[in-house]
């Protein structure tokens, strides 16, 4: 086998191995999207009931709560950025990071100090590599978040929000919305202070359109709100984490699909090159044999 042919064969082998890996990753992600979407759907009943309850309290009482009180001269803002723990997911993490940087820029323009909280190793490494300040970070659950994870994140953020001094005045969340298998958008939303007239059910209908009965609040409207609102924030963050996880899998599936397709094409063109290299080798060997035979024939004719 000629050197040229051997080089081609080797490259085909290595690309085939890569293709096997990307194909496997594609299939794993495809299976996990379904799981992640089911998790989003399974969390909807709780989120909807909670939203309904929060709206009911808000419409039926004038209770004030620290989590709903707007600070007119807000000076500090927190941004929660949700990214992936692992790479190979196309532009998933970098789109979220870009959205968060734009938001940070805008908030700075409004004269606010920005503290960034990060979920996911990718976002964290982006920020630490550039020596950007990070308030706190959580890693290890980006592809399969549980309610407990959301609770841990929410607890820290609520604490930062309600802290007497040095606390933040508003909280923004940058996450990736799962629109469809093909489209995932990096979105940013202000979570705190809560605007109760803006709370929405999962099917995007404003909860306000319902008419609520006159509830008896136990122990009191304030007491109920006190317990409800942190749960509501947790549930919003949980939803953002779940949506982002589904988006991460969808983005990874798409990235791995195009990697597999590209590997397939590379194999095809390398095979063509290898074939023509082999053919060239054969042609050359034949012409050498023919040339050799002719030379022998000429030599023996001359000796007669």
């Amino acid at each position, binding site marked *: 086998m000629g050197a040229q042919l051997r080089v081609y064969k080797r490259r085909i082998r290595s690309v085939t191995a890569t293709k096997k890996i990307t194909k496997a990753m594609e299939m794993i992600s495809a299976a996990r999207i379904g799981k992640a979407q089911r*998790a989003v759907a399974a969390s909807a009943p709780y989120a909807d*009931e909670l939203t309904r309850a929060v709206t009911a309290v808000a419409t039926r009482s004038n209770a004030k709560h620290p989590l709903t009180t707007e600070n007119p001269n807000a000076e500090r803002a927190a941004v929660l950025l949700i990214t992936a723990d692992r790479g190979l997911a196309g532009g998933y993490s970098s789109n979220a990071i870009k959205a968060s940087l734009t938001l940070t820029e805008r908030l700075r323009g409004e004269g606010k100090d920005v503290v960034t909280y990060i979920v996911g190793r990718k976002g964290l490494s982006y920020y630490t590599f550039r020596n950007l300040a990070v308030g706190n970070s959580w890693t290890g659950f980006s592809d399969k978040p*549980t*309610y407990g994870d959301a609770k841990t994140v929410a607890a820290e953020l609520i604490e930062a929000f309600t802290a007497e001094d040095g606390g933040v005045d508003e909280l923004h969340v940058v996450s990736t919305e799962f629109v469809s298998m093909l489209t995932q958008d990096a979105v940013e939303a202000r979570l705190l202070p809560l605007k109760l007239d803006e709370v929405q059910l999962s099917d995007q209908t404003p909860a306000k359109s319902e008419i609520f009965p006159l*509830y*008896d609040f*136990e122990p009191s409207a304030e007491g109920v709100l006190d*317990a409800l609102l942190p749960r509501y924030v*947790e549930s919003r963050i949980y939803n953002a984490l779940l949506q982002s996880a589904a988006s991460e899998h969808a983005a990874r599936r798409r990235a791995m699909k195009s990697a597999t397709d590209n590997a397939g094409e590379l194999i095809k063109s390398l095979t063509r090159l290898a074939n023509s290299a082999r053919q060239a080798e054969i042609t050359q060997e034949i012409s050498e044999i023919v040339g050799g035979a002719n030379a022998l024939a000429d030599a023996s004719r001359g000796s007669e």
Partner: protein
Amino acid sequence: MAELHVELVAADRKVWSGAATIVVARTASGDTGIMPGHTPVLSVLETGPVTIRTVDGGTVIAAVHGGFISFADNKLSLLAEIAELADEIDVARAERALEQAKSDLDAHAERRAEVRLFAARGLKAHA
């Protein structure tokens, strides 16, 4: 017999739903029993067992940890961060958790483990 519709929902799943005649739950101000036609109420749940008597005479017991109960239009929603039906509870694990909590002097965890055990054993007593 009058009945009310019950939805027991945890943060990450729907745990149980169906028709019941009475639901007893531990709220911030004590045990509350809710029967069909109760006045609309919205209250905070404590960590405790929830007992649901179903229309066919059965009993569903669940351990819930934190959450709310809201009742309106004969529809009762029990929202809990964590909710486990009695037959889903791993008794041996709950016992271990109780031991652990006792040695750690973690009153919160101890209460959670106790409630789990209570719910799991309550079901056996009925069966």
